[in-house]
């Protein structure tokens, strides 16, 4: 063999080896891409891919606290004294909730001193007497609480928590810190005899009170127990029961995604909707329109749909293999990851905060509901969004929360969310209102409420979004809830 042909063979072998290495690398990359696009994670390779689960797991750790926030934080000066709702999203709200986490963690690492069945009257008295009250919209499963608060050594006694009262240095309990936690059935009392923290002590209380006192949307309310034990109201309801409260709220403007007349036909319009939904134009999703006129983007295992009423939907249509009972924490993490992804991709979700409002379990999945809340700017807090009369074609369930997401431990099965561009105006309008006056107005003007003759279960100030409304700006309303539904009356601006 000549020297030249030897060299040629040498380079040919080199080329083959290089090609083999390249193909192996390509193969690994391909496997990585496939893994990252599936619900399961690939621990080593997924870190190379920007869209991978590992990346979102890291950010999930960073933002997990933002998805388990109390709907209400109340400061109380005692029975028949002043009670204030701390504006959600304010600096004081964040610091109080951060500090409360230390007390709750400590409590859940010990056994309760006392466990008693819920007595509404007693609960109302505790709430009115003690300094801090934290209320969630629903009972949060204890596994989720442990994960969010990083509780390392929990003593598992309660299935979840929905309401918490914290009384640091309680004079009625030898100046120990006392925590009352309520689930759907019991009140658990924890007396922390070796808790060295003082992040919610009297000094902190005074400092928060002083920094908020006199500011708008920090009004002196009463707690329903103080209206008398024979009053028919829920004993822990907090409201302006006697004098007017003056509060300032923004008008919220909203615009739907895509074409405003609900009909999209051109590729450019489809692409525009994709940009708003996904933050990019996805070539792997085929655009289409269904029989209801909804915009559809479909690939082999999932469908995105944008209904005419601005509800977006993701549906997994691939094969589900797993039949094992899902774990609530894993399902919740899937749900939060998915919602994070929507929030990251969609600019319209920027001004929206989310509150977990319901958790329900079926045989092989969990459904989580979240409500939107719109920031008013700084110390003015937030105002939640209430959906009214929203229905979806082909579904017998009302769409009553801003996000409804169904997940297993492995994947998201379905997610529906309100996909509107919501924007609070910069100027705020003053509203004067009190509870009995607006109950009167509601009963005088809404026949179905009057005829139902049912006790009031709750109330709130909301941005009420009515399906089909062509008024693209909304002002706050007073909303009453009973077991049959909700009834709203617009607040009167000044």
């Amino acid at each position, binding site marked *: 063999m000549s020297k030249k042909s030897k060299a040629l063979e040498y380079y040919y072998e080199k080329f083959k080896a290089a090609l083999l290495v390249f193909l192996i690398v390509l193969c690994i990359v391909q496997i990585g891409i496939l893994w990252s696009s599936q619900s399961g994670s690939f621990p080593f390779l997924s870190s190379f891919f920007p869209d991978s689960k590992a990346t979102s797991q890291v950010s999930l750790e960073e933002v997990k606290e933002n998805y388990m926030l109390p709907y209400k934080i109340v400061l109380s000066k005692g029975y028949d004294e002043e009670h204030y709702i701390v504006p959600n999203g304010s600096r004081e709200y964040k610091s109080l909730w951060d500090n409360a986490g230390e007390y709750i963690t400590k409590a859940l690492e010990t056994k309760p001193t006392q466990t008693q069945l819920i007595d509404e009257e007693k609960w109302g008295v505790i709430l009115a007497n003690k300094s801090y009250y934290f209320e969630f919209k629903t009972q949060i499963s204890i596994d989720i609480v442990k994960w969010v608060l990083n509780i390392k050594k929990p003593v598992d006694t309660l299935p979840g928590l929905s309401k918490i009262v914290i009384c640091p240095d309680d004079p009625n309990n030898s100046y120990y810190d006392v925590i009352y936690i309520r689930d759907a059935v019991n009140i658990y009392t924890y007396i922390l005899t070796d808790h060295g923290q003082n992040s919610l002590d009297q000094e902190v209380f005074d400092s928060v009170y002083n920094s908020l006192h006199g500011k708008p949307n920090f009004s002196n309310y009463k707690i329903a127990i103080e209206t008398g034990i024979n009053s028919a109201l829920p004993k822990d309801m907090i409201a302006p029961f006697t004098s007017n409260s003056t509060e300032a709220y923004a008008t919220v403007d909203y615009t739907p995604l895509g074409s405003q007349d609900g009909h999209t036909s051109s590729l450019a319009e489809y692409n525009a909707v994709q940009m708003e939904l996904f933050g990019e134009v996805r070539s792997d999703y085929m655009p289409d329109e269904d029989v209801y006129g909804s915009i559809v983007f479909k690939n082999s295992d999932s469908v995105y749909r944008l209904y005419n009423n601005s509800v977006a939907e993701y549906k997994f249509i691939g094969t589900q293999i797993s039949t094992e009972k899902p774990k609530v924490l894993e399902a919740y993490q899937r749900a939060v990851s998915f919602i994070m992804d929507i929030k990251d991709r969609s600019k319209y979700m920027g001004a929206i905060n989310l509150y977990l409002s319901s958790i329900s379990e079926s045989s092989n999945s969990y459904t989580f509901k979240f409500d939107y809340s719109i920031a008013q700017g700084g110390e003015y807090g937030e105002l939640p969004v209430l959906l009214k009369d929203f229905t979806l074609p082909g579904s017998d369930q009302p769409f009553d929360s801003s996000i409804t997401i169904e997940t297993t431990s492995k994947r998201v099965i379905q997610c529906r969310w309100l996909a509107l561009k919501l924007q609070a105006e910069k100027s705020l309008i003053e509203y004067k209102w009190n509870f009995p006056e607006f109950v*009167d107005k509601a009963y005088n003007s809404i026949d179905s409420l009057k005829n139902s003759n049912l006790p009031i279960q709750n109330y709130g100030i909301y941005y009420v979004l009515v399906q089909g409304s062509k008024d693209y700006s909304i002002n706050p309303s007073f909303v009453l809830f009973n077991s049959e539904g909700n009834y709203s009356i617009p607040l009167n601006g000044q």
Partner: protein
Amino acid sequence: MRSRLLLFIIIITAIMSLVVSPVGAAPGKFVEISRPEGNAEVVTKDVFSIFGTCVYDETIITFEYKDRSTEEFKPLETTEGYSTFKVGSGKMFGKDIKLKYRGENIIKIIAYTKDVKDDKDKQVQTYTITQGEEKKKSNWFEKAIEWITNPGKDSDKDKKD
């Protein structure tokens, strides 16, 4: 024929008695006062909140207090500045009043509907609200002494004080 007419009159009378009696009864029950609780309360602050739930739509409520010098009842204004107000279909009310005196305040709550013409048919309830001294807030030293000398004294009590 006569017995049928008699039966008809009896039925009509029975129905009328059911329908008319709630407003015509004397004195009527027009409001359930939930606060003050019982006939008397002791408070520390000079502003007291009165709460109640009315039985009928459109109930008129009047507050009065007993003047110590004349021993007569006079109109008692709420902090919003009126002593008589109407409660509509919502049926509930909550009003703040400023107590006139330290010590005993005799307060009268009068409730009626527009169908009530005679004073004797109005619902009248009298309450005694005693404004006492505000509890002095003890300092940390006093608290510590109290805790050392009497550690279990107040434990597990959730008083409304």
